[in-house]
């Protein structure tokens, strides 16, 4: 008897990690992506392997998810990460006052940390603002989102998954109260075809609502855009965060020989059409300068924006919305064979995949356990080979 067939729509970090988990548990998987792997939200993210420090005061659920996945990913893709830790730096009295809550938050969320005196921080990071008052070292890291997704998908392919890029889902196939597959247009050939599935997983990030609607259901996902500004020099070895409540432009991430400043946050209607507000770009440079004054004299190399899929709770302020993730079994909306996984961040992609794959396996009566924690990923290059 052949294994059940699961279609995963979306090859960003969520779809890639989900395909890997599904394939590892012996299911037949087809990933459908209308463009190149990680071509939107995941591709343009901040590349930050979160230690969870950013969320340890106000969003402890997210913080714990982050630190657990952070330490795990170091074992799963050891050669594809910059692992020089991060610093949370206090530049003002207000920041300094926040330190106590921050340290307490790290303790509560089991985030390893070490307090660093200001002078020492400047010895470690010569381009840090010389007015630094205090610093706390945490296990932040840096990944490369495109290769991150390729590694998960390459491993999934090795375990039998089929990945079809440039293949756009144009409709969901319905039969009574169930989703039974998808209609796709393969842009490589221009042909339209249908593909049957036992379960369709909607892993489309900010488009989750759009795809859900094809199935006649709603998901409370709000596309929320953010801008990243990359300058052309590697000015720090560590990720530099502002020691305070999360706000715009308070993180600088080194990557190769560049530094990425981010980010901002504004709700948008169409994730395919994001106009980058010039004042956001200016704000990133301004805020970046506060942490690392040399940014002032460093040429901008690239500016990008993409939309996060934030799960909206009614009435919540953008910065207050939890960065955690959620799975929706649309059986609750009366539609079988269809689930959505949304929210979250690339750092927690594996955990998101575990949760939605558990849900899919439960629905299909497949007793396989998750093994993604112990299974290192193959080289990202194998995706194309």
């Amino acid at each position, binding site marked *: 008897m052949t294994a059940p067939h699961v279609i995963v729509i979306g090859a960003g970090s969520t779809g890639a990690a989900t395909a890997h988990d599904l394939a590892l548990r012996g299911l037949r998987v087809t990933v459908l992506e209308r463009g190149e792997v990680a071509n939107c939200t995941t*591709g343009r993210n901040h590349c930050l392997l979160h230690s969870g420090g950013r969320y340890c005061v106000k969003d402890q659920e997210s913080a714990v998810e982050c*630190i657990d996945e952070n330490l795990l990913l170091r074992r799963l893709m050891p050669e594809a990460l910059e692992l020089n830790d991060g610093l949370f730096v206090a530049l003002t009295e207000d920041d300094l006052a926040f330190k106590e809550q921050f340290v307490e938050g790290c303790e509560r969320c089991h985030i*390893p940390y070490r307090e660093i005196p200001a002078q020492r921080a400047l010895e470690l990071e010569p381009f840090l603002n010389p007015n630094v008052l205090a610093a706390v070292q945490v296990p932040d890291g840096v990944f490369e989102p*495109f290769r991150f997704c390729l590694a998960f998908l390459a491993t999934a392919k090795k375990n039998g998954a089929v990945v079809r890029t440039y293949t756009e889902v144009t409709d969901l196939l319905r039969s009574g109260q169930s989703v039974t597959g998808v209609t796709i247009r393969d*842009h490589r050939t221009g042909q339209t075809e249908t593909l049957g599935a036992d379960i369709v997983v909607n892993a489309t990030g900010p488009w989750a609502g759009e795809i859900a609607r094809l199935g006649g259901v709603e998901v409370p996902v709000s596309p929320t855009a953010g801008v990243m500004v990359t300058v052309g020099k590697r000015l720090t070895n560590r990720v530099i965060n502002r020691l305070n409540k999360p706000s715009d432009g308070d993180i600088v991430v080194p990557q*190769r*020989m560049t530094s990425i400043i981010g980010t901002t946050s504004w709700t948008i209607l169409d994730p395919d059409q994001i106009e980058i507000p010039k004042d956001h770009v200016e704000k990133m440079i301004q805020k970046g300068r506060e942490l690392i004054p040399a940014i002032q004299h460093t040429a901008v190399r690239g500016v990008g924006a993409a939309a996060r899929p934030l799960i909206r709770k009614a009435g919540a302020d953008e910065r207050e919305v939890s960065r955690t993730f959620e799975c929706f079994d649309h059986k609750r909306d009366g539609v079988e064979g269809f689930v959505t996984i949304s929210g979250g961040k690339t750092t927690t992609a594996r955990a998101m995949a575990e949760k939605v794959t558990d849900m899919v396996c439960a629905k299909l009566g497949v007793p396989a356990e998750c093994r993604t924690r112990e299974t290192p990923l193959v080289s990202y290059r194998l995706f194309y080979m």
Partner: protein
Amino acid sequence: MAIEVPAKVFRYRPGAAPRHETYRVTVPDDATVIDAIEAVWRQVNTLMFRHACHHASCGACAVRVNGYEKLPCIVPVKEALAGRAEIVVEPLRNFPLIGDLVVDVAGFFQKQAASGMVITREAEATLDGRPYQRSETFDDEGKLGERPYTRFENCIECGICLSACPTMAAADKFFGPAGLAAIYRATRPADGAQNKSLLLALADGEQGVWRCHSAFECTEACPQSVDPAGAIMALRRELIARKLKRLFGARER
């Protein structure tokens, strides 16, 4: 402020003759060429193109802009349009074509994998010329320990150097500038002697460094200062030094 950009884009599907189509798109005046390509895609959603990070670190978007190899995510539209009637966007040369601007990178990644280059390397001892102190870092169990700092390699495996290389044009099997530069990087650590000999033998082989004809276009076109030509010449120096040593009886190391 928005500007109108005429973009002449290469269109192709297997089975049909390739052609150039001109589209008119409107983008912000500080947009980059990838923004213009996306704007074209919003007009004709059949356009196939690769992109991901939009800040020149993933290497996915490499194409030819006005006939020259570029990463369109860091080329301002104004610069591409300067003194021209339109921006011409075409796929990289010397790769098989899948459709429109998308090329088949399977053979390329096979070479990259064979090169043994790990995508991260030890970080430099200075940051933009300034020395810094090292501290212990956390490991995968959250314990502090002495270990080297790392960073991603310069090479983003974009394929631009292969498109620019005249030898690559005529010879599919040539290991290529990126691959040879990768072998150079992979053979720099002092340890790993056995693997180093194998990799140097690959570089010394039929499709290795000796097929390079010193056009230096790879180094010129590279957006990431990898200097593949420099790496190829450095490998040649090393290979010659080894041959001379062997000639005079020294043990192979």
